[in-house]
């Protein structure tokens, strides 16, 4: 049989205003009901993975940090881990640390996660008798948690309960014309129905600050966007690189992008025409106000979407020119492309193909297909990369050196 990409979700006539999720005590709704094994430090990674391999329907989040970090840098790791534990896609959480991770202990992380009302347990490898006993303890607790989690049923909830993550990657000239436009259409529908969307990627805002500032409900938010871009440029300049001097890049210009405005305006299409209601730092939890929220994240796809997941997004549209394998282990990640070549080459991980925009299909037609996919994936349909265990995009951003 020939390999078929299909065009993703089947298009329905009327937009669905509800989806099926797992309501949480704090009012959030999960698109998944995973048991999360959250590693507090790199030396607990293997124990987390060992437990996750044993327990069906569990996800391990591991990383190389949590040790020998200082000040705001360890705080950033801590907040990221807490944010993932609080993300509604985690039905219950086991946090595992190794010995005593200053500023990032399993107890402290679990304490913050418990505020959501979900069940959370902390395991310390040393105190619990070493790698094997800690594994056994976590496995036994996790099994009981999963007995409860798998007895819960999805309920019909409003689109207003959705925090839709937005990110693009391997952008090219097709991005602003096709998949980012379709994403923007979806953003508008979600916000019109009382939901929220989360735009990120500060690097892709350079040259588009005016446009974003004009969308802000308060001038102070617009000023924060300007400042955010300026600070990013300064951080990069401190490393001896002038980002403005390299934008658009040689590749971008060869691909037809003439100015930094043109490049950023293409990326900003994902925002649609929704009002910007808040601007937040990396990995901070988004407030509940309906509208578009903006997060300060780097262009690094994995770090950017990790920030978005910590912010509370249950589902993310990853809008890509080159096609992509990127997938967050906890937040459902839908990859879409309008580039015909990429749709073919990366069909294995492309969930929605919007190449018909270049054949004259209106943005709304493609947008509806992406919207339907968002609703279906939020309601339990697995994305291609989720099925394939492409768990490649949990990456914690750093702002300090190791000591």
């Amino acid at each position, binding site marked *: 049989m020939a390999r078929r990409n299909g065009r993703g979700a089947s298009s329905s006539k009327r937009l669905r205003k509800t989806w099926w999720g797992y309501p949480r005590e704090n009012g959030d709704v999960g698109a998944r009901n995973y048991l999360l094994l959250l590693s507090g430090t790199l030396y607990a990674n293997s124990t987390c993975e060992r437990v996750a391999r044993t327990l069906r329907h569990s996800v391990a989040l591991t990383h190389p940090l949590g040790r020998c970090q200082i000040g705001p840098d360890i705080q950033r790791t801590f907040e990221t881990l807490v944010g993932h534990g609080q993300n509604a896609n985690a039905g219950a959480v086991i946090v595992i640390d190794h010995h005593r991770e200053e500023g990032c202990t399993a107890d402290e992380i679990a304490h913050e996660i418990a505020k959501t009302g979900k069940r959370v347990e902390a395991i310390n490898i040393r105190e619990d008798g070493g790698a094997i006993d800690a594994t056994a303890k976590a496995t036994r607790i996790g099994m009981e948690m999963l007995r409860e989690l798998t007895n819960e049923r999805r309920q019909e909830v409003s689109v207003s309960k959705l925090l839709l993550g937005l990110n693009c990657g391997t952008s090219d000239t097709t991005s602003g*014309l096709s998949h980012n436009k379709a994403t923007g259409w979806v953003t508008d529908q979600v916000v019109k129905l009382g939901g929220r969307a989360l735009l990120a990627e500060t690097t892709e805002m350079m*040259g588009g600050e005016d446009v974003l500032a004009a969308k802000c409900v308060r001038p102070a938010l617009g000023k924060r966007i300007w400042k955010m871009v300026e600070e990013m440029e300064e951080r990069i300049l401190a490393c001896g690189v002038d980002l*403005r001097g390299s934008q658009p890049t040689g590749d971008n210009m060869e691909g*037809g992008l*003439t*100015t930094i*405005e043109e490049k950023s*305006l293409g990326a900003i299409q994902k925002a649609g025409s929704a009002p910007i209601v808040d601007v937040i730092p990396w990995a901070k939890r988004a407030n509940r106000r309906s509208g578009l929220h903006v997060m300060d994240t780097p262009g690094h796809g994995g770090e950017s979407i990790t920030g978005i997941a910590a912010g509370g997004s249950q589902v993310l549209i990853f809008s890509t020119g080159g096609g992509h394998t990127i997938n967050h282990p906890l937040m459902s990640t839908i990859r879409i492309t309008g580039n015909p070549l990429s749709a073919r080459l990366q069909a294995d991980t492309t969930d929605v193909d919007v190449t018909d925009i*270049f054949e*004259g299909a209106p943005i709304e037609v493609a947008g509806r297909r992406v919207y339907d996919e968002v609703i279906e994936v939020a309601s339990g349909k697995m994305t291609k990369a989720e099925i394939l265990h492409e768990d490649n995009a949990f990456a914690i951003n750093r702002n300090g050196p190791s000591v």
Partner: protein
Amino acid sequence: MPVTAMIIEERDNVATCLEKVAKGGSVRLMLNGKMGKTLKANQAIPYIHKICIKPLKKGEHCMKYGLSIGVASKDIKVGDYIHVHNIESARGRGDLA
């Protein structure tokens, strides 16, 4: 066969050519999926690069997405190839920064 060039917003003065265009080649404009008039390309235009669809005087804004992507550095005629040689960023030139 004319090459299709996509206009994003009605007030744009550029369109993106969906295939490369030879000098003198014809370009058919498309807006919201509807085919419109046909232009002649005054120069060759590479794959997914832009063509001018409304005349631009030096200093006028070049519009794409209904928004300014820069300023014309010289007068530009309908059918002209639009890129770094005749449009400059209003936010600072990357190569001159």
